[in-house]
């Protein structure tokens, strides 16, 4: 889901080669929606030929716009939909948008490719019954590290939150909620258990560690890791995967206490001018071969089970993309806690930032 996805030339070439074969057996559009589709997505978050092939297959032109983070997407839509048909928010923002009545329910009869989705994704907490969303990609927050500079694999959040081994060599994420949630995981609590005591305990933990933290990186923890400014970085797995592609000395691990699981969803905002075309695109993206081509380019975990047979072991068995079963079992999805808790988290974060 995260920013700065730079297309990688080798992968891009493979994806391009795949596309040549793909054009020959294009899935036929289920309905002829026609017209134009306004698609609002993260940067470098779709295979290079997918939009073009979609237009060839369906006759629908795609207007493709980019947002940098969920806050930007939400801020843009909160006072009314400026004309988007298809958006890709992360799970906790999906929840907010459902609560705020900003999403259009999906018509499952227009989405025959739903059968390709991994059953584990059929009934998520943030959208029971998949009424409003279809899964696009998923991933984790864990620790990216420089292999030659660590004494052992930093497989515990204690390495970042309480140890002084990596003092002055650690970058945290700049997002209040995620940082405090990882502190909660280390305390053995659920990351969604936002009692006042838990917020205070997590705040105290980060405050005590602040002088050893190099940066609360706004969105460049992987850059700091690559530059050698830090040796540990709490980051989204996709950002670290990119860094791993550039530098063999970088590894990624989801700590044993569990990390954060995220899922980006395809949804249709209320007031979309062309919901038929949006349904058609969602269905197209869930096609096994299209999803495989997309995953090979984006290099995040695809929730389309049927896509795996079209992907190689390099992707399917990549532990930075798919964490171990045990780690996965300890990991959690962040649930939107309500505005009151969000305010408390922000106040705790401001206190952390204000400390000298």
């Amino acid at each position: 889901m995260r920013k700065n996805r730079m297309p990688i030339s080798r992968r891009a070439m493979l994806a391009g080669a795949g596309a040549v074969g793909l054009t020959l057996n294009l899935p036929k559009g289920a309905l002829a929606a026609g017209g134009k589709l306004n698609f609002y997505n993260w940067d470098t978050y779709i295979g290079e030929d997918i939009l073009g092939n979609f237009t060839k297959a369906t006759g629908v032109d795609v207007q493709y716009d980019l947002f940098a983070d969920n806050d930007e997407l939400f801020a843009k839509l909160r006072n009314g939909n400026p004309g988007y048909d298809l958006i890709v928010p992360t799970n906790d923002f999906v929840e907010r948008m459902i609560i705020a009545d900003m999403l259009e329910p999906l018509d499952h009869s227009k989405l025959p490719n739903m059968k390709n989705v991994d059953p584990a994704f059929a009934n998520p907490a943030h959208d029971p019954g998949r009424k409003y969303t279809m899964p696009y990609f998923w991933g984790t927050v864990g620790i990216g590290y420089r292999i030659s500079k660590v004494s052992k694999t930093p497989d515990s959040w204690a390495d970042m939150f309480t140890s002084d081994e990596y003092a002055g060599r650690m970058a945290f994420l700049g997002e209040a909620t995620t940082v405090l949630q990882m502190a909660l995981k280390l305390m053995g609590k659920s990351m969604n258990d936002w009692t006042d005591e838990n917020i205070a305990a997590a705040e105290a933990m980060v405050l005590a560690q602040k002088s050893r933290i190099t940066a609360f990186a706004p969105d460049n923890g992987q850059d700091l890791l690559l530059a050698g400014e830090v040796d540990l970085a709490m980051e989204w797995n996709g950002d670290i995967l990119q860094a791993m592609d550039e530098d063999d000395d970088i590894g990624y691990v989801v700590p044993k206490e569990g990390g954060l699981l995220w899922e980006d969803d395809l949804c249709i905002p209320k007031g979309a001018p062309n919901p038929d075309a949006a349904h058609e695109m969602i269905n197209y993206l869930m096609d096994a071969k299209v999803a495989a081509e997309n995953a090979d380019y984006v290099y995040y975990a695809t929730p389309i089970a049927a896509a795996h047979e079209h992907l190689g072991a390099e992707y399917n068995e990549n532990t930075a993309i798919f964490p171990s079963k045990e780690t996965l079992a300890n990991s959690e999805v962040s649930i939107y806690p309500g505005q009151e808790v969000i305010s408390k988290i922000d106040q705790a974060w401001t206190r952390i930032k204000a400390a000298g």
Partner: protein
Amino acid sequence: MEDFRKHFSVFLTFFTPTAGWLVLLFFVPLGIIWVYSFGENISLTEIKTTWTLDNYKRMFEPQIITLFWRTVWLSTLSTIITLVIAYPISMVIATASNKAKPWLMLVIILPFWTNLLIRTYAMLNILGTRGRINDVLEWLWNLGDGALDLIGLGAFDLLGEHFAPIRFLGNNSGVMIGMIYVYLPFAVLPIYSSLERLDRNLLEASLDLGAGQWRTFRSVLLPLTSAGISTAAVITFIPMLGSFLIPNLLGRGKVDMIANVIERQFKSANDWPFGSALSLFLLYITFIILAIQAFANMRANKGRNDG
């Protein structure tokens, strides 16, 4: 000049677009922010204007006071250092030959041709612990350490066991270096223009009449360029107060200023009313500073006319 009252249509032609621009793009948005600041969040996306003062009361939370205070003192200190650096630069340009002047001005203005974000990233590259400055320092350290080895003192680790890079970033110094670097040209231009307008004969007269260099500088040059200095101070201090990118990148997110809190209210905290109140508070501070400057200028002019 012609009296515009006699040519009302001409006046209207020039006035309407300007006023329309100002009203539509400045007063209306500001008015909305002002109304928001008296509002309450009633749902994720709706704000109800209840004319509550709660958002302003929250200004007095200790962490907000701390951040306002940090913002003010970091900006004040940075402004003073900026002026101290800008004054000699301006003097060099003002006293340069007519041929050299445009080139020197170009050097000052050149950074403006590059986007602020890119300049800030460049500073990251220069100031990091693996940055260019520390590269040079490490090279010097190795040189020194090698020299000690040569004269047989290598075993004593006189320079420390390893090279320890200087941490410029992630602390107050990083933020200040960034602000001074970015706003220096803003300070040079007004000081330079006040030096340009200065009657050089006054300096010669002062020296001829027995005042030393320092006395001439303090009693003649400084007072005569005070208008330029105060303009420079104001136009560097005010944008520094609103710095957001620099604390985020050069402060490594560890040294927040008040604008970082404001940004969060409009994004992750989703608390537009509180964000609006904070922005307006910053605006009021700006107005007060501008008023003080106007008042000081008025007094200075009056003093000059009376004398």
